[in-house]
C-alpha cells in the first residue's frame, strides 16, 4: 500500500514513552474494548428482541473511533452517521445511555425519541448522528465556520463511510471547507462496502476519499484504520493543522466491518475468506499485542477488559430495568418553546 502515509509504528526501544505514551495508549485500548463489548452486546440484545428498530455496528472499526476520539480535546465536536455508536462512546458517553437509546428506553440518550441512528450528546460534543448519507458534512462545515468566526479553538470532525464519497453533499462540503479554510476534519471510514455493494464497483477511483482530495487542494491521506496509533497520530496532526488556521483535512481510514451492514444483514455478498483475513488484522488484537510488545503487563490489560465487561453488564441490567419513555414526550421539543403548536 504505497499510499499509506502513516504505517503501523514499530515498537521502539523507548516503548511506551514515545510520542503517544502509556496513559494515552491505555485509554485508546479501553475505548476500543468498550466499543467492541458494547457493540457485541447490542447485537446480542437485538437477537433477544430487546434492541428494536435498526442498528449499525462498528465491530472491526473500533480503532478509527478510538484514535480520533483520543486525539480530540474537550469542546471539539463530532458529527456521526447512523453507524455512530462507536464515535459516541469514544467521546465518553456512557454505555448505559447508548444501549438505553438502542433499547428505546427512558434512560437512553434521547429517551427513545431519536433511536440508534441519531445518537446525540451535546454535553460530550456529539452534535448528532445523521442518517441521510452526506448530510452532515456541510453541517460540520457550519460548526467549523462558527469557530472560525468567533475565534473559538474547537475543531469539528465529520465521520462517514466510503459510499458517502459519491454523493453531492460530500463534494460541496469539501470544496466549501477548503475555500473557507475551515477547522474541520473529514474522516472517511472505508470499510470497502456501501450497504451491500463493494465500493470499487461504483467508484471511478481506487481510493474513494483519498483520490478526491486533490480536487479540493487537499493532501491525499490514506491510513491503516485498524491501527489506533496510526489513526491517533494522523488525527492529532489534522487537529493541529486545523487549530493553526491551516484549514481542513480529508483522511481515509482503511478498515472493515466484521458484521453485516445493519442488524439483520448476514453479509453473504462478501467473498469467501475476506472476513477471516481482516479478522487477522482485528484492531483490538493488534492493539493488545502492541501493548504487550511495549511491556504492559497482562494484568493491566486484563483488568481493563474486566472493567469494561463489568460496565457493559451493569449498563445492560440498568437498561433492561429502565422504563419505556412516557407518552407525554411525544409532542415535546418540536419547537423551541418545548411544544408542537403550529397554530393558535
Amino acid at each position, binding site marked *: 500500500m504505497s499510499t499509506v502515509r502513516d504505517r503501523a509504528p514499530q515498537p521502539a526501544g523507548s516503548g511506551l514513552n514515545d510520542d503517544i505514551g502509556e496513559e494515552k495508549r491505555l485509554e485508546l485500548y479501553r475505548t476500543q474494548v468498550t466499543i467492541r463489548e458494547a457493540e457485541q452486546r447490542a447485537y446480542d440484545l437485538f437477537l433477544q428482541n430487546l434492541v428494536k428498530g435498526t442498528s449499525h455496528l462498528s465491530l472491526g472499526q473500533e480503532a478509527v473511533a478510538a484514535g480520533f476520539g483520543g486525539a480530540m480535546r474537550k469542546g471539539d465536536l463530532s458529527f456521526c452517521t447512523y453507524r455512530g455508536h462507536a464515535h459516541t462512546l469514544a467521546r465518553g458517553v456512557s454505555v448505559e445511555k447508548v444501549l438505553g437509546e438502542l433499547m428505546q428506553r427512558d434512560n437512553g440518550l*434521547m429517551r427513545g425519541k431519536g433511536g440508534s441512528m441519531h445518537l446525540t450528546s451535546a454535553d460530550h460534543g456529539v452534535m448528532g448522528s445523521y442518517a441521510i448519507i452526506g448530510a452532515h458534512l*456541510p453541517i460540520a462545515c457550519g460548526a467549523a465556520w462558527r469557530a472560525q468566526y468567533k475565534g473559538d479553538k474547537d475543531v469539528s470532525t465529520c465521520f462517514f463511510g466510503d459510499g458517502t464519497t459519491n454523493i453531492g453533499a460530500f463534494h460541496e462540503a469539501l470544496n466549501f471547507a477548503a475555500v473557507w479554510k475551515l477547522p474541520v476534519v473529514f474522516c472517511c471510514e472505508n470499510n470497502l462496502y456501501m450497504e451491500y455493494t463493494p465500493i470499487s464497483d461504483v467508484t471511478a477511483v481506487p481510493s474513494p476519499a483519498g483520490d478526491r482530495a486533490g480536487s479540493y487542494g487537499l493532501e491525499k491521506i490514506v491510513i491503516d484504520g485498524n491501527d489506533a496509533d496510526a489513526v491517533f497520530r494522523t488525527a492529532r496532526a489534522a487537529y493541529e493543522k486545523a487549530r493553526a488556521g491551516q484549514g481542513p483535512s480529508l483522511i481515509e481510514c482503511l478498515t472493515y466491518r466484521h458484521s453485516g451492514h445493519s442488524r439483520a444483514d448476514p453479509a453473504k455478498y462478501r467473498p469467501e475468506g475476506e472476513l477471516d483475513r481482516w479478522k487477522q488484522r482485528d484492531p483490538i488484537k493488534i492493539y493488545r499485542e502492541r501493548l504487550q510488545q511495549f511491556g504492559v503487563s497482562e494484568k493491566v490489560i486484563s483488568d481493563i477488559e474486566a472493567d469494561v465487561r463489568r460496565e457493559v453488564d451493569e449498563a445492560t441490567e440498568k437498561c433492561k430495568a429502565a422504563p419505556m419513555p412516557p407518552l407525554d414526550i411525544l409532542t415535546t421539543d418540536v419547537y423551541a418553546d418545548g411544544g408542537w403548536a403550529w397554530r393558535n
Partner: protein
Amino acid sequence: MPEMTYRDAVIRGIAQEMSRDPDVVFLGEDVAKAGGVFKATVGLYEQFGPLRVRDTPISEQAILGAAMGAAMTGLKPIAEIMFSDFFAVCFDYIANEFPKSRYMSNGQLKCPLVVRTGNGAGSRFGAQHSQSVENWCMMIPGLKVVAPSNPADVIGLMAAAVRDPDPVIFFEHKSLYPTKGEVPDGEIVDTLGSAKVVRPGKDATILALALMVPRALQAAERLKSEHGIDCEVIDVRSLVPLDTQTILGSLAKTHRLFTVEENPRLCGWGAEIVSIAADEAFYDLDGPPVRITTPHIPLPAADILEDIVLPTPDRIVETVSKSLNS
C-alpha cells in the same frame, strides 16, 4: 410616512438585525460583492464586511448545511437560496435536518436560522424559476414559514424570524421587489404567527398571501363598487404558526371563505385552512369555501400564458361574485 421598495426593505431588515447582533451572519450565492441577483442585498457587504456577509459556491446543500451547523453552535445565520425552486436540490436540510434535530435529540440541539428565498411567478422565467413553493415547507413539522406582502412586513417579519429560536423559511415574492409601501422610521419588529386584516368587510373573507394580497385588495375594491359585495381581506403572512383565530374570527362575521393561492392546486396552503374551517367553523359558513389557485400545471414562460394561470383580480371578482350571487 416615508415610502420604500420591498427590495430595499429586505436590505433594511437584514441590516437592522446584523447591526443589533454580531452573531447574525449572512451567506448565499452572489449576495456579497454583487449585492444579490435581485439586488436585495446591496450594500450589506460594504456595511458589515467580508466575515459576516459571504459569497458561497453554487452549493445549495453546503449553504443550508453550513447555516445549520453554525446555528446549532451559536450563530444566527441568514442563508439565501436564490430561487425557491432550488429548494428541491437542498430539500434534505429543509425537510429532514433543520426541523428534526431538536426533536430527535430530545431538545439537545437547536436550529435558529432563517432561509430567505425568491419565490413566485410574474417574471416570465418558466417552470423552474417561478414556482410558489410555500406549501412544500408548510407541511413539515418543526419549520416556521412566513411570506410578507409589503415592505413594512418584510422588515418586521425578518426581525421576528432572525430573533426566533426555530428554523424559519422566509419567502420573498420576486414580483413584489419593485413595489413600494409605507415604512415607519426606526426599528421594526413584528411577530410570527399573526395574520392581518388588511381590509375589513362583512360579506365574505378572502385569504391571501404575498403577491396575492394586492390582487385580493384590488378585487375587493371592485367587488364593492361593481357588485356591492363588501369583502374582508386577510393577509395570512405566516403559514406556520398559523393564526387560525384571526381567520375563524373573520368567518364568524362574514360566513363565507375564499382563498387566493399562487401555489398549484393540490395541497396548497388554502386546502389546510379550508379543512380547519370545515372542522371548526362549519356552522358559521353560509356557502361552500372556494379556493382560487393556480391550476395544477407547471408554469409557462410566455407572458400571455403566465398571466392567465395566476389568480388575477378579474378571476377573484368573478369567482366571488358568482359564488355569492348563486
